[in-house]
């Protein structure tokens, strides 16, 4: 049985923890609104970009001449995995969920006898992955000192990936990030970005228009594909940022509630032992008086 003093101390410490988690929740909620807005605003751009590329792909008759970024190298040996995580912790399962999904994929790739290369973005993911897969990491990015991630950062990573691709360092590139669905649901996702995956349905073919291209398709594609890559990465960034805040908000909300429960329980314990000691003292006094 802990003494009264101990209980008092514990209640105090849990209460101050609760204050911290409550404040973090509030901050996350405020940031979430902005991040969510950004993610929603960023969606049309990447969607439309994907649409244009889809239309372009349709008009390409000779796949062997098409740019490599679009159709791939034709081989399937080396996989480059880009894992996007946060730079900060205390956000529930956010980072772990991405890493879990990534690790499942890593295992599969290695099991199939393929070569694995990893780029990590964000320090939390790096910490989780480097223990098991440290030797596969070729590059790590962290934008910890940046307050907000802009298109420029996405472009830096995009350029790096294209650079590696041009040096024939990999055949396929997969991007891991959390898709922001709503505040409580974030779905970790693996998206193949090189070669571009035809994710949308094929039945759109009847409204395919014959486009006029200026200059020709190849040149447009050459200009557009690297841009699209950066756009996809940027989209992943935005989704991730919103997911991180959402995840942190729910995690901190839970933590605040748990702390509240704990305080209640400790308070009852405290009161009980206080009462017990009073009763004990009373009994002592009474029995002392009786013996006189």
């Amino acid at each position, binding site marked *: 049985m802990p003494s009264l003093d101990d209980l008092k101390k514990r209640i105090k410490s849990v209460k101050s923890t609760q204050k911290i988690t409550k404040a973090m929740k509030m901050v996350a909620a405020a940031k979430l609104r902005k991040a969510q807005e*950004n993610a929603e*605003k*960023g969606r*049309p*751009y*990447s969607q*439309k*970009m994907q*649409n*244009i590329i889809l*239309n*372009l792909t349709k008009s390409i008759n000779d796949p062997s001449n098409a740019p490599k970024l679009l159709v791939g190298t034709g081989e399937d040996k080396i996989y480059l995995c880009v894992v996007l995580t946060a730079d900060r912790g205390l956000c529930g399962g956010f980072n772990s969920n991405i890493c879990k999904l990534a690790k499942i994929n890593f295992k599969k790739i290695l099991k199939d006898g393929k070569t694995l290369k990893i780029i990590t973005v964000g320090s939390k993911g790096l910490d989780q992955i480097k223990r098991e897969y440290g030797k596969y990491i070729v590059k790590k990015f962290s934008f910890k000192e940046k307050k907000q991630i*802009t*298109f420029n950062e*996405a472009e830096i990573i995009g350029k790096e990936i294209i650079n590696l691709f041009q040096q024939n360092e990999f055949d396929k590139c997969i991007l891991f990030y959390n898709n922001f669905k709503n505040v409580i649901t974030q779905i970790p996702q693996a998206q193949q970005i090189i070669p571009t995956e035809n994710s949308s349905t094929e039945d759109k073919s009847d409204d395919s*228009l*014959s*486009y*006029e*291209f*200026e*200059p020709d398709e190849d040149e*447009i594609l050459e*200009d*557009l594909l690297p*841009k699209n890559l950066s*756009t996809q990465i*940027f989209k992943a960034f935005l989704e991730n940022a919103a997911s991180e805040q959402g995840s942190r908000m729910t995690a901190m909300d839970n933590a605040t509630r748990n702390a509240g429960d704990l305080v209640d329980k400790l308070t009852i314990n405290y009161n009980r032992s206080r009462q017990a000691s009073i009763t004990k003292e009373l009994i002592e006094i009474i029995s002392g008086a009786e013996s006189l």
Partner: protein
Amino acid sequence: MSEKFTVEIISPDRLIIKSEATEVTIPSYEGQMGILKDHIPLITFLRPGLIIIYGNEKKSYYVEEGTVEFSNNNLLILTSKAKVLENIDKKSLEEIKDLAKKKLNESEISDKEKYLLSYKIETINEINQ
């Protein structure tokens, strides 16, 4: 009446404008291009220049690059940088111009880059006059 079509300018972080227009001129890669209603479907990309939207009122945007798609009377302009002409700070433009000029004098740039840079300088000169 129905001589109008929709124009959208979208940047990665937001929708810059969505409105109706009767005519839009864009600085396409191979030259200035005017688009009217019922233009044939088109995909092209931009060089530095001005996008001018003629609708209820005339609106101009300065862009450095971008991709354009026109289909079903919907003009879609995707660009990472588009600025409303009236709001541009002339000083910052001069800075961009100086930077472009400096780059132009470097030897190891491709013809394509040279082409784009020279248009950037020309456009900025035009604006600042």
